[in-house]
Protein backbone atom coordinates (compact mmCIF):
# COMPACT_ATOMS: atom_id res chain seq x y z
CA UNK A 1 0.00 0.00 0.00
CA UNK A 2 1.38 3.38 -1.00
CA UNK A 3 0.29 6.80 0.21
CA UNK A 4 0.83 8.40 -3.17
CA UNK A 5 0.08 5.93 -5.97
CA UNK A 6 0.93 7.01 -9.50
CA UNK A 7 -2.03 8.58 -11.29
CA UNK A 8 -3.66 6.09 -13.70
CA UNK A 9 -3.52 8.55 -16.62
CA UNK A 10 0.29 8.77 -16.18
CA UNK A 11 0.70 4.99 -16.14
CA UNK A 12 0.63 4.33 -19.88
CA UNK A 13 3.08 1.68 -21.24
CA UNK A 14 6.67 2.84 -21.14
CA UNK A 15 7.29 1.57 -24.67
CA UNK A 16 4.90 4.25 -25.94
CA UNK A 17 5.90 7.20 -23.80
CA UNK A 18 9.66 6.58 -23.25
CA UNK A 19 11.57 6.58 -20.00
CA UNK A 20 10.91 9.26 -17.39
CA UNK A 21 13.87 10.17 -15.18
CA UNK A 22 13.51 12.52 -12.23
CA UNK A 23 16.60 14.09 -10.62
CA UNK A 24 16.26 15.48 -7.09
CA UNK A 25 18.86 18.03 -5.99
CA UNK A 26 19.14 21.06 -3.71
CA UNK A 27 19.68 23.84 -6.26
CA UNK A 28 21.07 24.57 -9.73
CA UNK A 29 23.36 27.51 -9.01
CA UNK A 30 26.80 25.87 -9.32
CA UNK A 31 28.68 22.74 -8.31
CA UNK A 32 29.78 19.36 -9.66
CA UNK A 33 26.66 17.34 -8.81
CA UNK A 34 24.50 20.13 -10.18
CA UNK A 35 26.49 20.16 -13.43
CA UNK A 36 26.15 16.39 -13.65
CA UNK A 37 22.36 16.69 -13.41
CA UNK A 38 22.19 19.48 -15.98
CA UNK A 39 24.50 17.72 -18.44
CA UNK A 40 22.71 14.39 -18.14
CA UNK A 41 19.33 16.07 -18.61
CA UNK A 42 20.64 17.89 -21.68
CA UNK A 43 21.98 14.77 -23.34
CA UNK A 44 19.35 12.17 -22.40
CA UNK A 45 17.70 12.16 -25.80
CA UNK A 46 15.87 8.86 -25.24
CA UNK A 47 14.26 9.91 -21.96
CA UNK A 48 12.10 12.68 -20.60
CA UNK A 49 13.94 14.44 -17.77
CA UNK A 50 12.49 16.21 -14.77
CA UNK A 51 14.54 18.06 -12.17
CA UNK A 52 13.12 18.67 -8.70
CA UNK A 53 15.05 21.28 -6.69
CA UNK A 54 14.49 21.37 -2.95
CA UNK A 55 15.08 25.08 -2.56
CA UNK A 56 13.96 28.49 -3.70
CA UNK A 57 14.06 29.16 -7.47
CA UNK A 58 17.51 30.25 -8.70
CA UNK A 59 17.99 33.03 -11.16
CA UNK A 60 20.72 32.32 -13.68
CA UNK A 61 23.23 29.65 -12.75
CA UNK A 62 23.16 26.27 -14.40
CA UNK A 63 19.42 26.18 -15.02
CA UNK A 64 20.03 28.54 -17.97
CA UNK A 65 21.78 25.66 -19.77
CA UNK A 66 18.73 23.41 -19.73
CA UNK A 67 16.71 22.85 -22.91
CA UNK A 68 13.02 23.79 -22.91
CA UNK A 69 11.80 20.19 -22.76
CA UNK A 70 13.38 19.58 -19.34
CA UNK A 71 10.85 20.39 -16.67
CA UNK A 72 12.23 21.99 -13.49
CA UNK A 73 10.10 21.88 -10.34
CA UNK A 74 10.95 23.96 -7.26
CA UNK A 75 9.83 22.83 -3.83
CA UNK A 76 10.99 25.20 -1.10
CA UNK A 77 11.86 22.61 1.52
CA UNK A 78 12.46 23.47 5.17
CA UNK A 79 13.67 20.99 7.78
CA UNK A 80 11.17 22.32 10.36
CA UNK A 81 8.28 21.14 8.22
CA UNK A 82 10.01 18.02 6.91
CA UNK A 83 7.06 15.58 7.14
CA UNK A 84 4.82 18.00 5.27
CA UNK A 85 7.43 18.66 2.60
CA UNK A 86 8.24 14.98 2.13
CA UNK A 87 4.52 14.45 1.52
CA UNK A 88 4.50 17.38 -0.90
CA UNK A 89 7.50 15.94 -2.75
CA UNK A 90 5.88 12.49 -2.91
CA UNK A 91 2.71 14.11 -4.22
CA UNK A 92 4.71 15.87 -6.95
CA UNK A 93 6.45 12.62 -7.83
CA UNK A 94 3.07 10.99 -8.22
CA UNK A 95 2.17 13.66 -10.80
CA UNK A 96 5.45 13.19 -12.67
CA UNK A 97 5.24 9.37 -12.39
CA UNK A 98 8.95 8.79 -13.09
CA UNK A 99 10.42 5.37 -13.81
CA UNK A 100 13.64 6.35 -12.07
CA UNK A 101 14.41 8.82 -9.30
CA UNK A 102 18.09 9.80 -9.01
CA UNK A 103 18.96 11.87 -5.91
CA UNK A 104 22.11 13.90 -5.29
CA UNK A 105 23.77 15.20 -2.10
CA UNK A 106 22.74 14.63 1.52
CA UNK A 107 19.33 16.22 2.11
CA UNK A 108 17.98 15.47 -1.37
CA UNK A 109 19.10 11.87 -0.77
CA UNK A 110 17.22 11.72 2.52
CA UNK A 111 14.04 13.50 1.40
CA UNK A 112 14.11 12.10 -2.12
CA UNK A 113 14.52 8.47 -1.08
CA UNK A 114 11.64 8.73 1.40
CA UNK A 115 9.34 10.52 -1.02
CA UNK A 116 10.16 8.17 -3.90
CA UNK A 117 9.42 5.21 -1.64
CA UNK A 118 6.07 6.73 -0.64
CA UNK A 119 5.27 7.36 -4.30
CA UNK A 120 6.28 3.81 -5.26
CA UNK A 121 8.78 4.89 -7.90
CA UNK A 122 10.08 1.66 -9.49
CA UNK A 123 13.81 2.52 -9.40
CA UNK A 124 15.60 4.79 -6.95
CA UNK A 125 19.26 5.74 -7.03
CA UNK A 126 21.35 8.04 -4.94
CA UNK A 127 24.84 9.22 -5.69
CA UNK A 128 27.79 7.92 -3.72
CA UNK A 129 29.61 10.83 -2.15
CA UNK A 130 33.03 11.27 -0.60
CA UNK A 131 31.72 11.17 2.97
CA UNK A 132 28.93 8.72 3.63
CA UNK A 133 26.49 9.58 6.38
CA UNK A 134 25.28 6.66 8.55
CA UNK A 135 21.74 8.07 8.68
CA UNK A 136 21.62 8.37 4.91
CA UNK A 137 22.91 4.81 4.48
CA UNK A 138 20.44 3.38 7.00
CA UNK A 139 17.55 5.13 5.33
CA UNK A 140 18.63 3.98 1.88
CA UNK A 141 18.96 0.41 3.14
CA UNK A 142 15.48 0.61 4.61
CA UNK A 143 14.08 1.94 1.34
CA UNK A 144 16.21 -0.48 -0.74
CA UNK A 145 17.93 2.32 -2.63
CA UNK A 146 21.33 1.43 -4.10
CA UNK A 147 24.01 4.05 -4.60
CA UNK A 148 25.82 4.77 -7.82
CA UNK A 149 28.86 6.77 -8.66
CA UNK A 150 28.83 9.04 -11.69
CA UNK A 151 28.95 6.84 -14.80
CA UNK A 152 32.51 6.21 -15.91
CA UNK A 153 33.98 4.43 -18.89
Amino acid at each position, binding site marked *: *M*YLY*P*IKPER*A*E*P*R*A*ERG*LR*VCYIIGHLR*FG*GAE*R*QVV*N*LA*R*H*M*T*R*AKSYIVCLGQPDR*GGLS*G*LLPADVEVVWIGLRARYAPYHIGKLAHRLRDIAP*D*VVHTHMFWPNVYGVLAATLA*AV*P*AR*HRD*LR*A*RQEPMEDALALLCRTPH*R*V*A*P*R*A
Partner: protein
Amino acid sequence: MLRSTTLASWRHRSAPQINRQRHLAALIAEGRLAPNAVAIHVFGGGVQTDDERRMDDLGLSGLLVKHDPVNHATILRYLRGADLLYLPSGRDVRYALPFKLFDYLSVHVPILAVAPKDSAVADFMQEVDCGEIADIDDPEAVRDALSSLLLVRKQYTFRGAERYTWDAIALRYMGILDKDLVCTARTGDVFIPDKA
Protein backbone atom coordinates in the same frame (compact mmCIF):
# COMPACT_ATOMS: atom_id res chain seq x y z
CA MET B 1 60.75 31.52 -24.03
CA LEU B 2 57.12 30.61 -23.80
CA ARG B 3 54.50 33.31 -24.26
CA SER B 4 50.88 33.45 -23.13
CA THR B 5 50.28 30.51 -20.89
CA THR B 6 46.91 30.57 -19.20
CA LEU B 7 45.67 28.36 -16.42
CA ALA B 8 41.91 28.60 -16.35
CA SER B 9 39.71 27.91 -13.39
CA TRP B 10 35.93 27.82 -12.90
CA ARG B 11 35.82 29.22 -9.43
CA HIS B 12 38.15 30.12 -6.61
CA ARG B 13 40.93 27.69 -5.83
CA SER B 14 41.19 26.00 -2.49
CA ALA B 15 44.27 26.48 -0.29
CA PRO B 16 46.04 23.25 -1.31
CA GLN B 17 45.50 24.09 -4.97
CA ILE B 18 47.01 27.53 -4.50
CA ASN B 19 49.89 25.91 -2.63
CA ARG B 20 50.73 23.85 -5.70
CA GLN B 21 51.31 27.07 -7.64
CA ARG B 22 54.71 27.23 -5.95
CA HIS B 23 56.01 25.07 -8.81
CA LEU B 24 55.06 27.86 -11.19
CA ALA B 25 56.83 30.33 -8.92
CA ALA B 26 59.97 28.15 -9.04
CA LEU B 27 59.97 28.03 -12.85
CA ILE B 28 59.58 31.81 -13.00
CA ALA B 29 62.32 32.32 -10.38
CA GLU B 30 64.71 30.15 -12.42
CA GLY B 31 64.06 32.33 -15.46
CA ARG B 32 62.65 29.39 -17.44
CA LEU B 33 59.26 31.05 -17.71
CA ALA B 34 58.61 34.75 -18.34
CA PRO B 35 56.53 36.27 -15.51
CA ASN B 36 54.15 37.86 -18.01
CA ALA B 37 53.67 34.53 -19.80
CA VAL B 38 51.45 33.09 -17.09
CA ALA B 39 48.01 34.15 -15.90
CA ILE B 40 45.68 32.55 -13.39
CA HIS B 41 42.09 33.41 -14.30
CA VAL B 42 39.45 33.17 -11.59
CA PHE B 43 35.82 33.40 -12.70
CA GLY B 44 33.01 34.38 -10.35
CA GLY B 45 32.95 34.01 -6.59
CA GLY B 46 36.17 36.00 -6.08
CA VAL B 47 39.27 34.80 -4.25
CA GLN B 48 39.29 34.01 -0.54
CA THR B 49 41.51 36.16 1.68
CA ASP B 50 43.67 33.20 2.73
CA ASP B 51 44.24 32.27 -0.89
CA GLU B 52 45.20 35.84 -1.80
CA ARG B 53 47.67 35.87 1.09
CA ARG B 54 49.24 32.62 -0.13
CA MET B 55 49.52 34.02 -3.65
CA ASP B 56 51.24 37.09 -2.19
CA ASP B 57 53.65 34.90 -0.22
CA LEU B 58 54.60 33.06 -3.39
CA GLY B 59 55.00 36.28 -5.34
CA LEU B 60 52.26 35.23 -7.73
CA SER B 61 49.62 37.83 -6.98
CA GLY B 62 50.52 39.69 -10.17
CA LEU B 63 49.38 36.66 -12.18
CA LEU B 64 45.88 36.70 -10.77
CA VAL B 65 43.15 37.94 -13.12
CA LYS B 66 39.70 38.15 -11.53
CA HIS B 67 36.55 38.04 -13.62
CA ASP B 68 32.86 38.44 -12.94
CA PRO B 69 30.73 35.36 -13.60
CA VAL B 70 30.62 34.67 -17.35
CA ASN B 71 28.61 32.29 -19.49
CA HIS B 72 29.78 28.83 -20.48
CA ALA B 73 30.70 29.80 -24.05
CA THR B 74 33.07 32.48 -22.75
CA ILE B 75 34.75 29.99 -20.44
CA LEU B 76 35.33 27.67 -23.40
CA ARG B 77 36.93 30.56 -25.32
CA TYR B 78 39.36 31.11 -22.45
CA LEU B 79 40.11 27.38 -22.33
CA ARG B 80 40.84 27.31 -26.07
CA GLY B 81 43.29 30.19 -25.66
CA ALA B 82 45.33 28.40 -22.99
CA ASP B 83 48.54 26.45 -23.57
CA LEU B 84 47.71 24.03 -20.79
CA LEU B 85 44.82 23.34 -18.47
CA TYR B 86 45.31 22.46 -14.81
CA LEU B 87 43.28 19.56 -13.39
CA PRO B 88 43.72 19.06 -9.64
CA SER B 89 42.06 16.20 -7.75
CA GLY B 90 42.22 15.62 -3.97
CA ARG B 91 42.94 12.48 -1.98
CA ASP B 92 39.42 12.37 -0.56
CA VAL B 93 37.74 12.12 -3.96
CA ARG B 94 39.88 9.45 -5.61
CA TYR B 95 36.84 7.87 -7.26
CA ALA B 96 35.71 11.05 -9.03
CA LEU B 97 36.49 12.70 -12.34
CA PRO B 98 36.23 16.49 -11.92
CA PHE B 99 33.52 17.89 -14.15
CA LYS B 100 35.77 20.53 -15.65
CA LEU B 101 37.57 17.63 -17.34
CA PHE B 102 34.80 17.25 -19.92
CA ASP B 103 35.13 20.89 -20.94
CA TYR B 104 38.92 20.55 -20.98
CA LEU B 105 38.64 17.59 -23.37
CA SER B 106 36.23 19.41 -25.64
CA VAL B 107 38.81 22.11 -26.47
CA HIS B 108 41.75 19.71 -27.09
CA VAL B 109 44.28 21.63 -25.01
CA PRO B 110 46.95 19.61 -23.10
CA ILE B 111 46.08 18.89 -19.47
CA LEU B 112 48.31 18.89 -16.40
CA ALA B 113 46.64 16.56 -13.88
CA VAL B 114 47.82 16.50 -10.27
CA ALA B 115 46.15 13.59 -8.51
CA PRO B 116 46.79 10.52 -6.32
CA LYS B 117 48.31 7.51 -8.09
CA ASP B 118 45.30 5.25 -7.52
CA SER B 119 42.60 7.67 -8.59
CA ALA B 120 40.06 7.92 -11.37
CA VAL B 121 41.99 10.89 -12.76
CA ALA B 122 45.21 8.83 -12.93
CA ASP B 123 43.36 5.98 -14.70
CA PHE B 124 41.86 8.47 -17.11
CA MET B 125 45.21 10.08 -17.94
CA GLN B 126 46.63 6.60 -18.67
CA GLU B 127 43.70 5.85 -20.96
CA VAL B 128 43.53 9.09 -22.94
CA ASP B 129 46.62 10.70 -24.47
CA CYS B 130 45.81 14.26 -23.49
CA GLY B 131 48.58 15.52 -21.22
CA GLU B 132 50.73 14.76 -18.20
CA ILE B 133 49.84 13.29 -14.81
CA ALA B 134 51.84 14.06 -11.67
CA ASP B 135 51.49 12.34 -8.32
CA ILE B 136 49.97 14.70 -5.77
CA ASP B 137 52.45 13.47 -3.14
CA ASP B 138 55.54 14.06 -5.29
CA PRO B 139 56.41 17.76 -5.72
CA GLU B 140 59.24 16.93 -8.11
CA ALA B 141 56.84 15.07 -10.40
CA VAL B 142 54.56 18.11 -10.51
CA ARG B 143 57.46 20.34 -11.44
CA ASP B 144 58.72 17.91 -14.10
CA ALA B 145 55.27 17.56 -15.65
CA LEU B 146 54.83 21.32 -15.71
CA SER B 147 58.25 21.79 -17.33
CA SER B 148 57.50 19.08 -19.86
CA LEU B 149 54.21 20.70 -20.86
CA LEU B 150 55.43 24.27 -20.99
CA LEU B 151 58.93 23.84 -22.36
CA VAL B 152 59.01 20.60 -24.41
CA ARG B 153 55.56 21.24 -26.00
CA LYS B 154 54.85 17.58 -26.80
CA GLN B 155 51.90 16.90 -29.12
CA TYR B 156 49.00 14.81 -27.78
CA THR B 157 46.58 12.79 -29.91
CA PHE B 158 43.52 12.96 -27.58
CA ARG B 159 42.70 9.43 -28.73
CA GLY B 160 39.97 7.97 -26.49
CA ALA B 161 38.52 11.38 -25.58
CA GLU B 162 35.40 10.58 -27.60
CA ARG B 163 34.36 8.16 -24.82
CA TYR B 164 34.10 11.11 -22.45
CA THR B 165 31.68 13.34 -24.32
CA TRP B 166 28.37 13.97 -22.55
CA ASP B 167 26.51 12.18 -25.36
CA ALA B 168 28.57 9.03 -24.75
CA ILE B 169 28.16 9.32 -20.98
CA ALA B 170 24.39 9.83 -21.26
CA LEU B 171 24.24 6.71 -23.44
CA ARG B 172 26.07 4.65 -20.79
CA TYR B 173 23.83 6.12 -18.09
CA MET B 174 20.77 5.05 -20.08
CA GLY B 175 22.31 1.58 -20.24
CA ILE B 176 22.53 1.49 -16.43
CA LEU B 177 18.91 2.59 -16.09
CA ASP B 178 17.71 0.09 -18.70
CA LYS B 179 19.55 -2.67 -16.85
CA ASP B 180 17.88 -1.74 -13.56
CA LEU B 181 14.45 -1.62 -15.15
CA VAL B 182 15.14 -4.64 -17.32
CA CYS B 183 11.93 -6.55 -16.55
CA THR B 184 9.54 -3.74 -17.23
CA ALA B 185 11.61 -2.13 -19.98
CA ARG B 186 11.77 -5.29 -22.08
CA THR B 187 8.11 -6.14 -21.77
CA GLY B 188 6.77 -2.59 -21.93
CA ASP B 189 4.76 -3.25 -18.78
CA VAL B 190 4.15 -0.52 -16.28
CA PHE B 191 4.73 -0.75 -12.57
CA ILE B 192 1.29 -0.47 -10.99
CA PRO B 193 1.51 0.12 -7.26
CA ASP B 194 -0.79 -1.65 -4.85
CA LYS B 195 -4.14 0.03 -4.59
CA ALA B 196 -5.08 -1.68 -1.35
